[in-house]
Structures are given as structure tokens and as C-alpha cells.
């Protein structure tokens, strides 16, 4: 079955630095990928998505990169701020459901 994995469970960065959160997946049939942010006591919040016909997509301070060859997805956050501290999940769509990764906790040091 599908599996989605995270390379690092915790990432600690200095405020103002860039953050990179990685995600590996195994289902080559997946064609839609999403990054979510989850703050304590809240549900997953949509950040950015990308379809499989793209390899890069940019939002406000965030960039998602997709490498289908090695089945790897990354989220880059520019100029990381304290408000970015949260758990970040990658999720891939298969059929009508999302399969989530285990999450990476991003800690921003002032």
C-alpha cells in the first residue's frame, strides 16, 4: 500500500533562516500533493499544493518542490518566523483520500 515518510521528526531553525522540510513517498500513481501545517490544538491547515505535472510551485514565502523520479517532496519556507513553529505534514492524494506523512516539528529559535 501507499506510504508516506518524513526524513526528520524535528527541525530547529533560527528566526530569519530558511527551512526545508522533506517528504518521501512510495506510490508512483499519486498525482496531487499537499503540505499542511498543524498548530497545537488545531486541525491541519492547507499551505500549498502541487500537481504531478509540475516540479515547483511558489506561494507567499513557501515553495514546494516535487521530484517524481525519486518520489521526493519538499517544502521550503523563506525567512522563517516564530509563527511558523508547528508540525508540518505532507499528504498525497490517491483516489478520493489523502495519505499523510508522520509530520515534522519545526521549531523556530528567536
Amino acid at each position: 500500500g501507499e506510504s508516506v515518510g518524513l526524513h526528520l521528526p524535528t527541525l530547529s531553525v533560527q528566526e530569519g533562516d530558511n527551512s526545508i522540510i522533506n517528504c518521501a513517498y512510495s506510490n508512483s500513481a499519486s498525482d496531487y500533493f499537499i503540505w499542511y501545517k498543524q498548530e497545537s490544538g488545531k486541525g491541519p491547515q492547507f499551505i500549498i499544493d502541487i500537481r504531478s505535472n509540475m516540479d515547483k510551485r511558489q506561494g507567499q514565502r513557501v515553495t514546494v518542490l516535487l521530484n517524481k523520479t525519486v518520489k521526493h517532496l519538499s517544502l521550503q519556507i523563506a525567512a522563517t518566523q516564530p509563527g511558523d513553529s508547528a508540525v508540518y505534514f505532507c499528504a498525497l492524494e490517491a483516489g478520493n483520500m489523502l495519505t499523510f506523512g508522520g509530520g515534522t516539528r519545526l521549531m523556530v529559535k528567536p
Partner: protein
Amino acid sequence: EPEVTQTPSHQVTQMGQEVILRCVPISNHLYFYWYRQILGQKVEFLVSFYNNEISEKSEIFDDQFSVERPDGSNFTLKIRSTKLEDSAMYFCASSDGGSWQPQHFGDGTRLSIL
């Protein structure tokens, strides 16, 4: 900004009892979902719902579970004869498309089975 709302935020129930978790999806969305997250584990898909019927369900979603859209705004998850292992956060989500459209999540209901 439109959001998915879930009630209650915390539900405590005795083992064997039935619970109903409630969700109000974003108003113009047509696709509805339930997920759960056991403490310390991944978010897991339970069921998707479109056009008043289940479109997909996971192995977790057995006969103990059911979903319903009783009116034009609510979407419910019923768990019959609850077990200790049903304790988890339950998230409702909605989207305005079946594929390639982001699912938007509520803040969840924490279900505690005693």
C-alpha cells in the same frame, strides 16, 4: 475566510456507548471527509462522502461507523458501541472538488473513551 467547524471540541464517553461527532463543512463544498489521528500517530483517512453517499472508505471504517448528511449544512460521524481504541482526534474536512482540490480541515473533536 470560510472554515469547517466541528462540535463538540471534546467528547468523553463510556465504552460501549454511541457517539455522534458533528461537522459543518464550508458552505459551497460538495465533498466531505472524516479522518482520525490517534495520539502520536499519523492522520488516517476514514471515509469520503459525495452526493449523499460514501465514495470511498478505509479498512478502519467498519460497520461500527456511519456517516450522514442530515440536512444541507451538517455532516456527522456516528460511532456505535465505542471501544477504548476509538479514542483519538477526529477531523472533518471538505473540498469543492473530488480530485486536485485541497481538503480544508476543522479543528477536530477529541474523543475520549473511558
